[in-house]
């Protein structure tokens, strides 16, 4: 392989892309989609409950409620001077629920004199926040007085198969969709842009001129290099545009690298098989769909056999590892299995590609 030739061909392709809408569009479309998702789709976050509280004396009730809530709900307390102000906050929808505590509330509670606590909630269908605070009050008051609960409740967590809803909650819809768009971006570069670059050289017979000075390997390597440059530029750009920052960069990067290598191989294979750009336009949709569809359907809660079939496609394991890499949690886990599936695809694709190219050279 001749590095000078590879770099010259790659530089030509990168420069030429600026003039070629067929290359620019697939690069810009996922970036635009990512931007739209980022703006239009909110993250699914922990429920937030605003509590307006009026207490003549300082009280430990907010802390007790927070302790009971744990990490499942974010409680925000607003201290006010009177019950009227509390009612005003609820009426103006600045608070989900209100608490009015008499003077010496904590002391009376400790003394066992059962002070009266007023819970103010909106009329009609109460908000989830009001229901939550109302149900947590008993446990919080017991906690403040040091009373044991009537029973000790032990909890156990059982790992269930992932479903989309839980992934969305853990990760957020915005991040989930942007990750899907990121894979779509890599797929568009690898399975659409790269084959265009390769097929056009053969269709217009400019490859004949390139092969006068270089080898088949130089041409193919140059095209892969162009694909890698596009991915290396556009993926960080998408992350910057959407404000995503992987919590586990090595895992995230490894998943992207494995996916890129696999899909670039698929793109080269497609470029080696089809004879014209128009054929490519006709057929590239199939591999693109096979890669992109499972990404957005991963863990949708579909029947097991569909889920298994989806998981065997290269996009699905990549999505799982990217989700784990972005969140820094083992939401899907089993990263090695995902990498193994991608590696198996890469080995199969490159084996067929090498066979086709060596036959073509003969």
């Amino acid at each position, binding site marked *: 392989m001749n590095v*000078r*030739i590879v770099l*010259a*061909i790659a*530089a*030509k392709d990168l420069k*030429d892309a600026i*003039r*070629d809408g067929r290359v620019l569009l697939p690069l810009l479309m996922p970036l635009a989609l990512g931007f739209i998702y980022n703006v239009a789709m909110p993250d699914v976050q922990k429920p937030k409950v605003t509590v307006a509280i009026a207490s003549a004396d300082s009280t430990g009730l907010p802390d007790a409620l927070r302790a009971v809530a744990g990490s499942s709900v974010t409680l925000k307390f607003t201290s006010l001077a009177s019950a009227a102000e509390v009612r005003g906050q609820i009426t103006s929808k600045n608070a989900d629920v209100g608490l009015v505590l008499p003077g010496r509330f904590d002391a009376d509670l400790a003394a066992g004199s059962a002070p009266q606590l007023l819970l103010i909630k909106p009329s009609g269908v109460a908000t989830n926040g009001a229901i939550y605070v109302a149900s947590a009050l008993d446990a919080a008051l017991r906690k403040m007085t040091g009373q044991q609960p009537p029973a000790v409740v032990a909890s156990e967590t059982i790992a269930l198969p992932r479903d989309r809803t839980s992934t969305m909650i853990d990760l957020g819809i915005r991040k989930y969709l942007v990750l899907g768009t990121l894979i779509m971006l890599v797929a568009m570069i690898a399975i659409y842009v790269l084959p265009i670059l390769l097929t056009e050289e053969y269709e*217009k*017979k*400019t490859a*004949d*001129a*390139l*092969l*006068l*000075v*270089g080898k088949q390997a130089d041409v193919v390597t140059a095209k892969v290099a162009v694909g890698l440059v596009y991915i290396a530029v556009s993926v960080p750009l998408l992350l910057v545009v959407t404000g995503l920052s992987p919590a586990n960069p090595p895992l995230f990067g490894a998943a992207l690298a494995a996916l890129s290598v696999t899909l670039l191989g698929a793109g080269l294979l497609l470029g080696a098989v089809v004879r014209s750009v128009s054929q490519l336009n006709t057929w590239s949709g199939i591999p693109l769909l096979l890669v992109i569809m499972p990404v957005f359907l991963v863990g949708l809660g579909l029947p097991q056999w569909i889920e298994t079939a989806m998981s065997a496609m290269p996009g699905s394991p990549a999505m799982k590892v990217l989700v784990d890499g972005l969140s820094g949690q083992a939401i899907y886990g089993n990263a090695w299995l995902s990498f193994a599936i991608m590696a198996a695809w890469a080995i199969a694709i490159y084996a067929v590609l090498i066979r086709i190219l060596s036959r073509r*050279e*003969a």
Partner: protein
Amino acid sequence: MIAVEGLAKSYGAVRALDGITFTVNHGEIFSLLGHNGAGKTTTIRILTCRLRPSAGSASVAGFSCRTQQDHIKPRINLVSQDQNLYERMSGRDNLAFFASLYGASKRRVEELLRAVGLGDVASRKVKTYSGGMKQRLLIARALVNQPEVLFLDEPTAGLDPASAHEVRALVKDLSGAGTTIFLTTHYMEEADELSDRVAFLAHGRVVALDTPRELKLRYGHKTATVLLQDRSEANIDLASSDDAARMESWMRDGRVLTVHSHEGTLEDVFIALAGRSL
């Protein structure tokens, strides 16, 4: 400069080349003529290291086409019948790209653009060029590495007479400067005008190889048309003793006005060898 011996190439059951042998000398213009599918392009593809032969040997500039491709490629170039240029790029960018592939200088690019008369339009996109301009750009591209051997595969195909004349003039200049030219063409007059030697290829075999003059003498008609005083015409066979006697008689009687000899053409040679014209 080029040595080919027993060269064969098969595509499955089809035998495109069937053991051809020839040599091309330094600075020579050598033409390979034949029908479509005779094996001309296959020969060029093997000699330009883009196709592996099935059998036999071929060398260019002393290097084997099988094993020393890296030594051959910098020394050769090709003007193909396909106008395979990057159409979205300008003429200058096309040449600059190929100069970068060969490690040639930017100055060389400008020299070539001027040499082929494209200096004024070098910044225009190639898709706006006429067929003749594209062909001249292809020739400039093929010279970017100052090749010792230049392969021309149907270099004037589809060109108007003026553009074809320009291309032929460029080929003569290159040959005059010492470049070895390997030419394939369908145009017999072009081969006759340009070639030092010509090889005829039929069904993957070289059926004749010599200078155009010798081939024409060997295979062409040896006849002449005589215009007599009474304005009548007579065709005579120069090899016939009877016709020689008739001619002598006319000359003696002062009846001959003009004599037009009919030297054979390469096309006659080809028909004689291959059974039909190109």
